[in-house]
């Protein structure tokens, strides 16, 4: 799909945020995912040209960060944290449970294109372990059953609101646009630092 004039307006506005244009590479790649769902060759070539980079330099960035996808993902990309704390708190079981429940492998999507699954590394939410993310929104303190319920709800078109984050779960493309720095006006919604996150601070203030 060729880039439209509107696309280029967005691209230019992203580039103009930075003193050196090559700094815009990461938000532009998120924008590419917002546009196409994943990073296409066309996007790589367009970004390289806009930023005066070689396509190989763009690929180096795309391939380094697992958040950038070279293949389409589901409308809702579900990540299960399998790093140490989440894993021992049930993350490994959740991942295995979802894999079986959805009948898909790591980094694959269901046939209806609704849900894809990924084993993800630490998402800095150990205080809510085990966590599951959908399109990078947190679902805290999950169990195998709650995670299965979550993907079922997603597939039936009624995803519950994230535990913390916006009131309604955005799609993969919508959140890619947010990551590109295009506000959806929902930054103020939901909880950011919840009670477990602030517990340490509270204890230290109480002098304990």
């Amino acid at each position, binding site marked *: 799909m060729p880039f439209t004039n509107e696309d280029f307006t967005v691209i230019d506005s992203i580039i103009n945020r930075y003193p050196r244009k090559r700094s815009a590479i990461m938000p532009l790649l998120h924008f590419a995912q917002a546009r196409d769902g994943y990073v296409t060759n066309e996007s790589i070539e367009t970004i390289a040209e806009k930023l005066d980079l*070689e396509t*190989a330099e763009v*690929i180096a960035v795309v391939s380094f960060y697992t958040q950038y996808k070279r293949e389409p993902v589901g409308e809702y990309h579900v990540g299960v944290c399998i790093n140490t704390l989440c894993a021992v708190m049930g993350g490994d079981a959740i991942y295995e449970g979802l894999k079986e429940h959805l009948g898909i492998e790591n980094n694959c999507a269901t046939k209806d294109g609704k849900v894809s699954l990924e084993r993800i590394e630490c998402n800095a939410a150990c205080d809510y372990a085990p966590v599951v993310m959908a399109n990078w929104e947190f679902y805290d303190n999950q169990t195998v059953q709650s995670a299965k319920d979550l993907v079922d709800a997603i597939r039936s078109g009624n995803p519950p609101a994230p535990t913390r984050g916006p009131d309604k779960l955005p799609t993969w493309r919508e959140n890619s646009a947010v990551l590109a720095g295009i506000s959806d006006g929902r930054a103020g919604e939901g909880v950011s630092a919840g009670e477990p996150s602030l517990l340490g601070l509270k204890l230290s203030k109480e002098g304990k």
Partner: protein
Amino acid sequence: MSTQEVSADVTLELITLTIDGFEVTVPKGTLVIRAAEKLGIQIPRFCDHPLLDPVGACRQCLVDIEINGRKFPKPQASCTIPVETGMVVNTQLTSNVAEKAQKGIMEFLLVNHPLDCPVCDKGGECPLQNQAMSNGNGESRFDGYKRTFEKPIKISAQVLLDRERCILCARCTRFSEEIAGDPFITLNDRGALQQVGIYEEKPFDSYFSGNTIQICPVGALTGASYRFRARPFDLVSTPSACEHCASGCDMRTDVRRGKTLRRLAGDDSQVNEEWNCDKGRWAFKYATANNRIKTPMIRGADGELHEASWPEALATAAAGLSVNRAAVLVGGRATVEDAYGYSKFARVALNTNDIDFRSRVHTDEERDFLTSAIVGVQVNYSAIDRADHLVLIGFEPEDESPIVFLRAYKQVRKRGLKVTTIAPFTTRGSKKLNAQVIKSAAGNESQLISKISGLTSKSVILVGERLCESYGALSAALKLAQTSGAKLAWIPRRAGERGAIEAGAIGTLLPGGRPVSDVAARVDIQSAWGVKSIPENIGRTTSEILVGLQSGDIDSLLVGGVDPLDISADALVGLEKAFVVSLEMRHSSITEIANVILPIAAVVEKSGSFLDWEGRARAFETAVDVPDLRSDVRILSMIAEKMGKPINLPTVAAAANEFASLGNWDGARAPFIAASGTAISGDTILASWRLLLDAGSLQDGEVNLANTAHPSVAVISTDRAEKLGVKSGDPVRVSNSRGEITLPCEIKDIESNSVWVPRNSHTSKTIATLGIASGASVSVVKA
């Protein structure tokens, strides 16, 4: 300035430190690993390279460091740490910690490295193999499965990658970015999956890609042309010089059982540093092409060529040249010794100054410019290093003298050297040099040179050989240099041109820059050669010689290494009437009409020297000894002998010695009469130059190299594209009354009255097809 190189211009601050108990004093900024080298202490390393920025990627060079009594808690990479006063360094030789750290790293690097040394091209000259022996454990503790990959993957037609061998030192990716400015390869993925790779749609078609193979410290990058051909210990290496262009690269030719298997960049910090271009590295199969001439041939009464013995062929050549009015054309690829041979042969054996080395588009203005302003003058690469402003006129360095490009790019990258170029459009090379582009239609350069201001005595003006095609431009460039005090250098494309000027292979000059018109200069040469007289008249130029052959004023021609289609589409007309003696390596359009053909040795088969664009001698030795093939000068000497007018140059060494003993002319140079160009006009003016990799005959026989050539396109302006209704990639037809060239177009910032095409690519040969090189009107239509 990086920590790798310390400028000689500033007074150096020196630092004294202790390494393994020895004190050493080095300039501030020196890396610990270099300071250790100064003491003869070799710290093992892979990623470290003196010409690349430090990166500390492989961790092999770990040493123990203490500064003023404070010890680093862990061993440090000596390739990234600059020396400090009071530093105490203990390498693997004196520190158990350093030795253990190095052995640990080596074991770690070998965890995934295959033990396929017996079938690996690098085996026998491999830094990993060697240093695993010198600085590693004898036995591995690793008993798991090593990674395997599909092997090899082609990252270009010429460069192959065996991923499992890579140790991720990033030498290749750093070279591509820092030295060549072509980051077409990068480190992709992350962690255990990290690999060198390309963007799948864009292969590693850098003109300098071969250097990555040479600096790969393992066998991860190999060349398609050399892969599995030889073991390093079976090769005989000979120091060589590159014959492809006037950059003057130091080279090494590796031969196995009489066959050239590879050529590598030599190490000459003054010239090519440790790099060369892919043409110099891989284009050597022309010498073993099957149209190679191995025995003398004589055209018989039946009009056909017949093989002949040397005495018979020499006698026939001598007889033909003796009874006729003869002229000499020597191509721009002759060595200094050969050019000197032709020069002396013309004057002594043929009694003429009708000799010209310029087998290409040329002008009288150019001849006078070379005679007055270039012969005997040296401007060096170091002038670029120190320049405050580099001006390029009619010269695309990446295509026409790649090492000049590398040197300029280095200065642009390291210190922001200001570059201005007068060119038809912004090329990729100009972009890399961050050059200010003064756009000019081909032929209009003389009108724009005056726009360049602010030059000083530290500025350098480089004019290309093809600038002569623009009337008045060389005069304007010379004037700019004279009024500003800037240094001016002329950069020919071929390796032999500068040497040919110095050797007097042109009608206005005798050897050593002596003007033919100067009686004292002639007397000099007469007495050195022991001849009674040297012709006094200015000799004919190449085009005048061709006219003379057509009109019958000249009726025999001695020609060596000339492709008529480099001169003009009609250069062969009239030649069939003449008696032609051709000294050639391979059959060509000249040998088709020659009366006598005398086979000559290729560069790898002879010794000699070239003068690069700087005027610096680049000597080379015989790498492949072929008894029956001789250097041109030896053959010329034999013909002269038969003619009874000996030139007494029986060997290359004799020619070199005699030429050196003549010395350079210290008298007045011929005055230069400036030509003044006028603005040219036209709707569609052709611009062109030769791409580095194209249809040049010295690139014959190397398919892998040819497949990395940049695509041939016709460059047109946005205006023209709109008018023609074409978009980038659509075919356009460039034509005139003689012929047409059809190429995909590329839309660039070229002036709307210009079109650019490659001069000598397989799909675009301007001289043969259109009968013009540049600066003339053509028409462009949608094809």
